[in-house]
């Protein structure tokens, strides 16, 4: 309600104000004409009271102010003429301070002050100082700003500039500068305070008013520039830092960027440029962030290139600036760029390029502060871009990394990997993988100056595990591209050396096996296409890759991987390939795996894998089975032999392959394992004086039951009965040590048999003859 009437009301108040001024002016003129100082002061004070209003916007206030201003000019002339009013200027200066209200008092004081300075009865600087400080009494922004504007205006031609008549002993250019700066500072404060005044809904109105007053504040800068005595030296040492320190309106900084920045290179090294420029860039970043519509302004003003050039010049000019200083400046610039122009990768690359220039020609960084800054520089794009790969396309990125010492290079590589893992976006082309692995090369192979022996083991393991995890993020749906990726990775990791290969080879192998599986489902070769990715090709590559483990050496790992490949080849129906992988596995077993425990596990893995193979023809299968059984029987410890041999029995009986159900050979295996178990018992008797637990026999019994149920014709109820009786005898014999475990095992086996008997039906019939 008030707002819509606002404009009309303002007109009304302005009119009232003007009327008030005119009214008092009439009497003021009369007083002046009759040289009546007292009256003049009275009416001028009343006149000036109109300026105490809070009701007007700056625009309207200005109109009022101008009326008052005109009157004050006339008053000033009167004050000057001492003969007319008979009061000394010193007394007059004191007299006007009796005015009732502060605002009129100060306007009068400034007016008298002007005359005072002109009279030279006191040093200019003293009067000016007095005035600029007294004006503090008015803290209302609009009134204060106009008051100080008045002060600036009347003092303009009275500054103790070089060559001016007001220059004198103790009165120098510096005093003039100081005065203007102080007035300016105070005006700025008032102007800033306006931002925080008033209720939120009036914000728009407030902003409008502020912009109207902006020029008042800016006039001070103009005055500064007019002071002749302000040479470059003074400007750069005294004026500029103060100006830059101000709580400035951001639009100022942006529009006057060129001027501001032009002065920077000239500044003394003692001026903390880094902070000044960083703060400037920070302010501008915040400003840009406040509204996307500001971006064109930034582009129009060419903020980036100006800042970039300025920093370059500063660094050039300050030859003694330590590297850390230069890099810090670029970190700030990068931060600015990432916030204001994130889409301009060319800008980002430029900043990095500038750093490369600084770092070039110098030895690898040793200063830890500088190193930290470089790491900050390199980390910034990683944090900013969701798709890490974007950062990877910056051509100068690796060049900056090259300047890090080996240790920091690795730290940075870890940072990169962590970033990628966090973002969970796949790196999907072999080109990108190439770039990535170049960047992290410190982790992939030994760089100059560091050998893997120097490294802390835990750190090293952590690094390598990171690289291994990274490999799972390298992926493309297209098999051709995926194969290219795998080849690229292999190219890089193959030079990793014996310490790294055990970490990096397995994930690559499994990546490749996954690719093979994808290709399995596809139809054969696509005619006319150039060398498509085929399982066969991939298996050839896999062979090479696993082969590399021989330098470590890591035969157990390699054996496992060969077996995985054999299964993969089996699923692709590639008999010779599968056979070859088994051959490799056996060779490793024969020649490289000597530890007995490792042998037990290895032979079980071979048996387990072989048991699942369906691609082999009779001959091949026989050869491999024969080998497996042979090695099983040759394990060091008898119980291990026994178990491995009965495990081999499954090689002769595969449920879903009718061709592989050789009951006789199953039985042969089981009998063989029984003999071994016997021998084990006897040995125990001889060596320990008591036979060992009957566990092995119970295990074999369970295997007999297994085949019995599967319908192996060779395994009859009587065979089972015989075994049960054998075990019972063994358990009851004097030399039996037994053990609760084997007892419980036997018991539960018998219980199982009972359960099956009670099942009835075919199973029950089968079990019927067995007596417990």
């Amino acid at each position, binding site marked *: 309600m008030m707002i819509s009437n606002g404009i009309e009301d303002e007109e009304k108040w302005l009119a009232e104000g003007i009327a008030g001024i005119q009214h008092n002016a009439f009497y003021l003129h009369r007083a002046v004409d009759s040289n009546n100082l007292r009256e003049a002061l009275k009416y001028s004070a009343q006149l000036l009271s109109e300026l105490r209003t809070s009701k007007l916007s700056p625009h309207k206030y200005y109109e009022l102010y101008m009326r008052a201003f005109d009157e004050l000019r006339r008053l000033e002339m009167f004050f000057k003429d001492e003969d007319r009013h008979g009061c000394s200027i010193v007394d007059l200066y004191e007299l006007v301070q009796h005015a009732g209200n502060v605002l009129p008092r100060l306007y009068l004081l400034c007016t008298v002050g002007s005359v005072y300075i002109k009279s030279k009865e006191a040093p200019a600087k003293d009067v000016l100082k007095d005035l600029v400080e007294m004006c503090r009494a008015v803290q209302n922004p609009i009134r204060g700003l106009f008051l100080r504007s008045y002060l600036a205006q009347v003092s303009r031609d009275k500054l103790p500039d070089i060559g001016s008549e007001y220059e004198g002993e103790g009165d120098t250019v510096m005093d003039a500068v100081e005065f203007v700066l102080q007035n300016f500072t105070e005006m700025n404060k008032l102007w800033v305070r306006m931002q925080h005044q008033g209720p939120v809904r009036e914000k728009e109105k407030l902003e409008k008013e502020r912009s109207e007053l902006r020029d008042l504040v800016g006039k001070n800068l103009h005055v500064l520039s007019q002071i002749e005595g302000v040479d470059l030296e003074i400007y750069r040492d005294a004026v500029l830092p103060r100006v830059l320190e101000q709580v400035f309106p951001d639009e100022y900084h942006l529009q006057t960027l060129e001027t501001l920045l032009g002065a920077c290179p000239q500044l003394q090294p003692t001026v903390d440029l880094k902070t000044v420029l960083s703060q400037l860039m920070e302010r501008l970043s915040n400003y840009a962030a406040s509204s996307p519509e500001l971006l064109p302004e930034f582009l129009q003003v060419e903020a980036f290139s100006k800042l970039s050039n300025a920093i370059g010049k500063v660094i050039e000019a300050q030859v003694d600036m330590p590297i850390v200083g230069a890099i810090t400046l670029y970190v700030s610039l990068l931060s600015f760029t990432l916030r204001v122009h994130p889409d301009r990768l060319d800008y980002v690359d430029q900043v990095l390029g500038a750093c490369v220039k600084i770092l070039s020609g110098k030895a690898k960084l040793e200063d830890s502060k500088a190193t930290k800054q470089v790491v900050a520089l390199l980390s910034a794009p990683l944090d900013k871009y969701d798709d890490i790969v974007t950062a990877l396309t910056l051509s100068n990125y690796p060049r900056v990394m090259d300047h890090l010492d080996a240790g920091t290079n690795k730290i940075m590589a870890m940072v990169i990997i962590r970033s990628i893992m966090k973002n969970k976006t796949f790196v999907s082309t072999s080109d990108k993988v190439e770039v990535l692995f170049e960047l992290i090369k410190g982790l992939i192979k030994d760089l100059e100056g560091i050998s893997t022996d120097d490294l802390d083991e835990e750190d090293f393991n952590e690094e390598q595990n990171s690289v291994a995890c*990274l490999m799972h993020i390298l992926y493309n749906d297209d098999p051709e591209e995926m194969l290219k990726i795998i080849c690229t990775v292999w190219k890089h990791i193959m030079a990793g050396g014996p310490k790294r290969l055990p970490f990096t080879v397995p994930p690559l192998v499994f990546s490749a096996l996954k690719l093979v599986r994808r290709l399995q489902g596809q139809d054969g070769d696509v005619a006319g296409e150039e060398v498509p990715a085929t399982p066969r090709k991939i298996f050839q590559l896999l062979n090479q890759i696993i082969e590399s483990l021989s330098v470590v050496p890591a035969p157990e790992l390699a054996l496992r991987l060969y077996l995985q490949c054999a299964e993969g080849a089996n699923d692709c129906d590639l008999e010779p390939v599968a056979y070859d992988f088994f051959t490799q596995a056996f060779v490793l077993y024969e020649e490289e795996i000597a530890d007995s425990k490792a042998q037990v596990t290895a032979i079980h893995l071979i048996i387990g894998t072989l048991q699942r193979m369906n691609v082999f023809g009779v001959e091949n299968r026989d050869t491999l089975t024969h080998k497996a059984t042979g090695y099983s029987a040759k394990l060091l410890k008898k119980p291990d032999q026994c178990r491995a041999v009965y495990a081999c029995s499954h090689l002769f009986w595969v449920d879903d392959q009718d061709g592989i159900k050789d009951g006789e050979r199953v039985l042969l295996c089981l009998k063989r394992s029984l003999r071994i178990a016997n021998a084990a018992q006897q040995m125990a008797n001889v060596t320990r004086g008591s036979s060992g637990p009957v566990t092995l026999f119970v*295990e074999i019994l369970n295997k007999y039951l297994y085949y019995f149920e599967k319908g192996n014709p060779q395994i009859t109820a009587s065979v089972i009965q015989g075994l049960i009786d054998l075990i019972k005898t063994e358990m009851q014999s004097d030399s039996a040590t037994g053990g609760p475990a084997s007892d419980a095992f036997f018991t539960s086996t018998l219980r199982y048999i009972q359960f099956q008997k009670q099942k009835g039906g075919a199973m029950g019939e089968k079990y019927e003859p067995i007596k417990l």
Partner: protein
Amino acid sequence: MVLVLALGDLHIPHRAPDLPAKFKSMLVPGKIQHVICTGNLCTKEVHDYLKTVCPDLHITRGEYDEETRYPETKTLTIGQFKLGVCHGHQVIPWGDLDSLAMLQRQLDVDILVTGHTHQFTAYKHEAGVVINPGSATGAFSSITYDVNPSFVLMDIDGLRVVVYVYELIDGEVKVDKIDFKKTTTATA
């Protein structure tokens, strides 16, 4: 009510970089009383992580485990139940229920937890229950195609155990449950 987490075959970092985020956020420390792991972690980091989920950690050795001193089999008693753990690559044919039943009889346990196939299964047979929690990371397996990440949570309460299986399918966690009751005569 005792909560037992059973998981395994993570194969970190050989075949997977980490547990799925959705699983990690469910495995909050302090909620679970025991953790059973069938093996193939493979690294110390994974071991340490599991320990933070619950300090009572039981692990058996998988064929890719870095730590070779984990036992081949383990048995433990929780409430009224005897549990046995074994990775399963030792039991041939791999994944064969009858052969696993033999192991169960041998270890004399009510619940046998085993892995290696990366395929979740929960069977009841004469000797008790065989549970395979699958692969917690959905790691590649030569035995099972299209492995979904999965793990098992057992709620043991008196003579009853409720087996919850959590599977990550197409980005969503799906839960299923199976009830088992033990008759007191089953074990000596």
